[in-house]
């Protein structure tokens, strides 16, 4: 996370994206959250050597990116940034699983490569679904949806608090770092000792801030519970969105569209 400075800017950018007014943005957050979950489960439920069956699932991110007016290049970059772990674990598949699984004329493709490709496709699908959820909904609405769907209020409130103060505290951390780098020469002053002072300083400020926030809350009658007042309405279009996509996922899960298309094509050819 060396580039966390820029990735935090990304938090702000993702939120900016969520302020748009498209048909996708206007949907109830619960519909989007549940659809995302169904999508992810459908994708990961495929067998490890599945590739063709996964391809049609691309329609979900593609359609949402189009309707939600989201920037595909930016999302692609975010997906790439997150890729190393899945890649690192998946790349062992071709090394360990060498038996030929698919024969394309003279070229034999080993099971390892097939399953590796499958992992990377799953990765792209699941990660893009999560990013699209947040870019089209915003964290605050996702939290509200979570609460309505039965997540413990204590947890949801923490999520909201955390998100609220990320912006304030990263600002503070940036100032500390700038102060350090302005006075560090030839890499001196970047070591462990100074680091712990900075973190300790930041922690002390954070604790003091938490105390002040608590005072501000108590001044306005806080008694231990936070009340969220915001109506959510599940309209017909939300139900259509959820049920429509979910049935499409089920259909694609059991019915391998590319195979049928391929057969159709090769059948047409002499």
């Amino acid at each position, binding site marked *: *996370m*060396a580039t966390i400075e820029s990735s935090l800017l*990304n938090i702000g950018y993702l939120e900016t994206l969520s302020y748009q007014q498209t*048909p996708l943005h206007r949907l109830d957050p619960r519909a989007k959250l549940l659809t995302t979950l169904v999508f*992810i489960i459908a994708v990961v439920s495929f*067998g*490890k*050597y599945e*590739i*063709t069956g996964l391809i049609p699932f*691309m329609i979900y991110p*593609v*359609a949402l990116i*189009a309707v939600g*007016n989201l920037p595909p290049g930016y999302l692609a970059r*975010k*997906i790439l940034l997150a890729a190393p*772990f*899945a890649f690192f*674990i*998946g790349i062992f*598949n071709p090394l*360990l*699983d060498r*038996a030929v*699984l698919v024969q*394309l004329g003279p070229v034999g493709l080993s099971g390892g490569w097939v399953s590796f490709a499958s992992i990377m496709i799953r*990765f792209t699908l*699941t990660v893009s679904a999560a*990013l699209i959820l*947040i870019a089209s909904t915003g*964290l605050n609405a996702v939290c509200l949806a979570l609460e309505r769907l039965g997540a413990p209020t*204590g*947890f949801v*409130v*923490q999520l909201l*608090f*955390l998100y609220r*103060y*990320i912006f304030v*505290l990263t600002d*503070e*951390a940036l100032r500390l770092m700038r102060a350090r780098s302005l006075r560090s020469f030839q*890499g001196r002053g970047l070591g*462990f*000792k100074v680091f*712990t002072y900075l973190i*300790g300083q930041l*922690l002390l400020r954070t604790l003091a*801030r938490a105390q002040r926030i*608590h005072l501000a809350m108590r001044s306005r009658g806080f008694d231990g519970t936070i009340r969220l007042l915001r109506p959510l309405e599940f309209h017909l279009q939300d139900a259509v969105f959820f049920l429509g996509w979910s049935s499409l996922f089920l259909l694609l899960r059991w*019915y391998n*569209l590319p*195979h*049928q298309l*391929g*057969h*159709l094509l*090769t*059948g047409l050819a002499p």
Partner: protein
Amino acid sequence: MHMADALMSPAVGGTMWAATAGLTAYSAKKLRKDLDEHKVPLMGVLGAFIFAAQMINFTIPATGSSGHLAGGMILAILLGPSAAFITMASVLTIQALFFADGGLLALGCNIINMGFFPCFIAYPLVYQKIVGARPTRGRILLGALAASILALQLGALGVVLETFFSGVAALPFATFLLLMLPIHLAIGIVEGLVTAAVVSFVWQAHPEILALAPAAPAARGHSHKPLWLGLALFAVVTGGILSWFASSHPDGLEWSVKGVTGQEELAAPREGVHGALARIQDKLSFLPDYDFKKPAAEKQAEKPESWPEISTGKSLAGILGAALTLLLTGVIGLGLRRYCSPGKG
């Protein structure tokens, strides 16, 4: 190390989600009962602190690489187990949503690996035992180091187990474990040193702050209840996955066990592939020869039988079809964007 959706099976993901949901509900209830209302803002702000602290890095001497704080242990020390667990869960949720670290299905795994182990195991069993009621610099160092190492080793073990039971990655259990544990030993040592240094710093500047946190679980004897509950839950969950796997996917287990015994001869992969092919066949038998097929199959000469043997024609059809699907998807996407953007204004 974040577990990723792409390496998960729904069964493992679902089980870990259930475990996480249970632990979160338990912790939230515990917090409500403790009536520590000052913790409400403190937890959220400390969660944000973890993010901010990760921006500040230091160069590890002689390596040129840089390290930073991961956070679970320091949260446990400042907040106590339940509050730290909830805070860590929200940190990981934000990471999953905004940085695509992990993913939504893997979130349950990640919360167990990086929240449960430090907060409910390493902190009460190791850190508190070593540091006790009267901290000294040395004890803090020893406690933080030992607890962080344990937490990260357990977390790494969690990742390996979850990957193994998901059966998507081919990495054999033992190899994977041998790969993960040493890496996480190093990470754990760094984490422990940072945690110790920061905790000592705070302890010297404001000793009363540290006095606050351990005071909460210091209601001794009583405090082990959540721990045992957590451990029992973990055992049940792990046992559940194991038995589920053993009964419904014997080939998956067999395949992985073979990996553990480490055969490199030609026979082994063939065996492995055999198992895998059998599974594919098994799954493809869902592909119906009737019903769905009719509209598309009109012009088809050959019968699309299932796919156990390697067939050039079949693969070609698959690839052609996939390409066509992709093309279609792209066209639909472009069309939608065309259609939606001007109307939106």
